[in-house]
């Protein structure tokens, strides 16, 4: 089985790095992911609560940090980058994001001139 071969290869080549086993992540990757996710939560929080940015700039910071946070969770916690080929998990995720994006962006677009103004 392909998975087994790659596992034993990895074991042979990785002597000495006891925590660097692939396929299920390591303590290091979880800690890095956790620290990054904390930082990416604090940035928008500080920006918004102190009114440091308004309007479009604030929106860009908010969306940017949210998307980065999403990527951190995917890579460091869900280990999407460690998937073997063919990457069905990635493909279904992209499909889901496409549908989700269409629903959200499409609804906003359709309803823009029908929404109650602030």
């Amino acid at each position, binding site marked *: *089985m392909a*998975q*087994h071969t790659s*596992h*034993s290869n*990895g*074991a042979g080549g*990785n*002597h000495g790095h*006891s*925590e660097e*086993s*692939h*396929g*299920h*992540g*390591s*303590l290091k990757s*979880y800690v890095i*992911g*956790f620290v990054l*996710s*904390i930082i990416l*939560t604090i940035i*928008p*929080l500080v920006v*918004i*609560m102190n009114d440091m940015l308004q309007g479009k700039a*604030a*929106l860009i910071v*908010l*969306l940017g*940090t*949210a998307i980065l*946070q*999403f990527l951190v*969770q*995917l890579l460091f*916690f*869900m280990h999407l980058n460690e998937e073997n080929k063919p990457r*069905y*998990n990635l493909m*279904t*995720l992209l*499909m*889901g*994001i496409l*549908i*989700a*994006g269409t*629903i*959200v962006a*499409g*609804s*906003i677009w359709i*309803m823009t001139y029908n*929404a*109650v*103004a*602030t």
Partner: protein
Amino acid sequence: MAHVKNHAHSQAQGHDDHHDGHVDQESLRRFGFWIFLITDVILFATLFATYIVLRNNTNGGPTGAELIEMPGIIASTFILLTSSFTSGLAVLSMNKGNLKGLIGWLAVTVLLGASFIALEVNEFVHLVHEGATISTSAFWSGFFTLVGTHGLHVSIGLVWMIGLMIQLKRHGINNITKRKVDVISLYWHFLDVVWIFVFTFVYLMGVM
């Protein structure tokens, strides 16, 4: 090396080198759960779309910016982030064959999840007392449906995780319980991702 030990361990228990079908079944089940998560993404997308479209339809009643109290929200955000991390540590313990560590980290995750839910219930009670119920306006309907659906997911996850801890105590770590732990940790990370977007779109943008 952790992995080699772990591999030998699973060989001893399941002889998976001789029954490749077993391994494939479990990885197929993991993938099946992943597809469920993607459909859940779509469910949340519709709720987000509804919330965003109706964000100004407050019907002359209270707005989010007036009633939302950020300290509790900030606390629950960090609690959920930490619980996502501890559920990862549970998987890490499992891969080392450490049953006690696995159950311990799952217990920490359950406690953090329960405090998240407690904070959320507290927030909803506060909102209702201030006169913002699900039927107050289209905005509050969207708000309670979106945030409540996420809270419901977390609550289901808590029950599920407690059930899994009992199973782990009885059966230990084998190929099947391994898959179950992998799947629930995926579910938990997913709920954290959804919360990040709730936090950004509902709370941060709401008070902006």
